[in-house]
């Protein structure tokens, strides 16, 4: 049921809270000591926690607010939880980061930008209007441009932010042109009205194809799908590790949320049963999902193959995150509820394992001052617990039991086989085998190679506790995944789709 503008405000309370705390966090720069990182960090954490309470209150809500511009439904609810957890973890990571101390006078700006990126991600997950989509995408982009170059004295970070902003502005410009064509063809900016306009026919197929491909450029850039992935390795390597971890989870998940909603609402023939068969063909026998399938195969293959040659662990994880975007896209190809819920479940796994891996990389960079995989030699002897944690995260990224990553991959492949995309499942499995090589190379370095130095390096209690909090769910959820599965299955509901 559509809400009036006045009533709508009560549905964006979490976003409002975050916006207020964005300002408050920024203000801590003038109240507290300029170099203190704790005051802005705790202010931001408080904002996330309060916003989290309001998000939890929205459980089960299924409403379209602000004249059909923004949907508050179980689908966006799922992503909001992911963003909040990622944001809180990143703030905790940032408190320990050595790298950020180079910009120690700007902690308030740093934490407030993390909040603003999260607000953008919230709106990306829920927007049902082309203008809202574009604006929220830009909010995420602009925040992340600044974040990636945050330690601006480091030449690496400068280069990362320059590449990011050029690729980003270019692809969002292409996306905007695509949006303008869509608006011109249908006269609508609302995805639901847009669906009806296509249903009535009379739309030029070629123009529609061009417009959608241009919009896919913008979305593909956000999720770093392959023809649009060139920025990813450089930005992930150059940006501070905490920012890299944040971008690889929040920004990517937000892009996927928007991609799924855009196609699922805009292009599905609601009357058709089952819905899977109801996606409109561009031309006879050629469906939108075929483009996505091609993107998915390209993304995971290129990501995995190039990752084989990397010697910098951040760059390796960047290519691995490209490959993971390919795996997640596989679930989208099916467009079935099963496929989408498998994708959602994979996001939970991805959040845990990817943030965990980046956390370990940050800890190692703090104490060992290196990001080179060769320098991980003997880490298993020098810091056993950290090495064990990294092993768990890398196994999870590969999809080997007993880790949650296995369950995530398993459900993705099951969804593909269920909808007869067996060739795609085979490509996915082959890719996982390839990925095993470069993940295990790190593990081999840690345990089977003799260290140059043998002194023990230990970490403090808080660090170990936070790491345990990431390791335990990675293993525990493998054994007891049914709550996550149920949550993901309940979250495929979008407003207006059944």
């Amino acid at each position: 049921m559509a809400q009036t503008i006045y009533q709508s405000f009560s549905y964006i309370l979490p976003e409002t809270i975050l916006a207020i705390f964005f300002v408050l966090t920024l203000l801590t720069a003038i109240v507290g000591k300029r170099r203190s990182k704790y005051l802005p960090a705790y202010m931001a954490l408080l904002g996330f926690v309060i916003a989290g309470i309001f998000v939890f209150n929205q459980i089960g809500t299924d409403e379209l607010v602000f004249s059909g511009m923004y949907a508050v439904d179980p689908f966006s609810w799922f992503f909001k939880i992911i963003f909040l957890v990622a944001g809180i973890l990143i703030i905790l990571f940032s408190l320990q980061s050595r790298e950020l101390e180079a910009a120690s006078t700007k902690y308030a700006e740093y934490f407030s930008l993390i909040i603003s990126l999260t607000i953008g991600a919230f709106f990306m997950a829920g927007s049902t209007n082309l203008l809202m989509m574009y604006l929220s995408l830009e909010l995420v982009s602009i925040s992340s441009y600044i974040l990636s170059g945050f330690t601006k004295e480091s030449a690496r970070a400068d280069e990362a932010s320059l590449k990011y902003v050029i690729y980003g502005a270019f692809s969002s410009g292409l996306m905007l042109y695509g949006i303008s064509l869509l608006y011109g063809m249908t006269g609508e900016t609302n995805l639901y009205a847009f669906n009806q306009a296509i249903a009535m026919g009379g739309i030029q197929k070629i123009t529609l194809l061009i417009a959608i491909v241009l919009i896919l450029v913008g979305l593909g850039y956000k999720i770093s799908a392959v023809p649009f992935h060139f920025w990813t390795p450089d930005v992930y390597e150059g940006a501070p590790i905490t920012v890299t971890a944040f971008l690889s989870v929040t920004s990517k998940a937000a892009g996927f949320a928007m991609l799924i909603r855009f196609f699922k609402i805009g292009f599905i023939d609601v009357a058709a049963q089952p819905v899977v068969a109801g996606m409109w063909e561009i031309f006879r026998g050629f469906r939108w999902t075929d483009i996505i399938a091609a993107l998915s195969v390209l993304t995971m293959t290129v990501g995995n193959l190039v990752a084989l040659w990397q010697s910098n662990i951040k760059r390796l994880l960047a290519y691995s995150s490209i490959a993971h975007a390919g795996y997640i896209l596989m679930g989208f190809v099916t467009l079935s509820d099963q496929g989408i819920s498998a994708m959602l479940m994979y996001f939970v796994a991805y959040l845990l394992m990817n943030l965990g891996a980046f956390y370990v990389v940050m800890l190692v960079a703090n104490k060992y001052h290196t990001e080179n995989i060769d320098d991980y030699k003997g880490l298993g002897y020098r810091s056993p617990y950290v090495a064990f944690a990294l092993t768990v995260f890398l196994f999870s990224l590969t999809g080997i039991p007993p880790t949650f990553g296995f369950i995530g991959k398993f459900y993705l492949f099951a969804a593909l086989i269920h909808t007869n995309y067996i060739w795609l499942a085979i490509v996915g499995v082959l890719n996982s085998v390839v990925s095993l090589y470069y993940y295990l190379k790190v593990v081999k370095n840690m345990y089977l190679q003799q260290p140059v130095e043998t002194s023990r390096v230990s970490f403090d209690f808080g660090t170990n506790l936070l790491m345990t909090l990431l390791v335990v769910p990675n293993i525990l959820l493998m054994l007891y995944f049914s709550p996550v599965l149920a949550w993901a299955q309940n979250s495929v509901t979008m407003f207006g789709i059944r």
Partner: protein
Amino acid sequence: MNLHVGLTDFLVVSAILFSLGIYGVVTRKNAIMVLMGIELILNSANLNFVAFTRFGLMNLTGQVIALFVIILAAAEAAILLAIVLNIHQQLDTVNVDEVDKLKN
């Protein structure tokens, strides 16, 4: 001779602007010139929005979108200029091809 300017004329102009923008982004080495290419792309989309609203469609959505895009383009230009300025201070170049330390 018919001098009436219609929707098609606007779309052609915007398509030309769009192509010039892409050409600029792809060929220019100077970061500022790349930014100008991006601005051309954004403005070609803006021209589309306004033209579609003026001819053909009855609502004002397109013009509102154009306003939003102008603001966003300004924000994006500010960010890019700040980053380029910082690059210039740190690395003493604004040539995007020379900023390539992050390659193996």
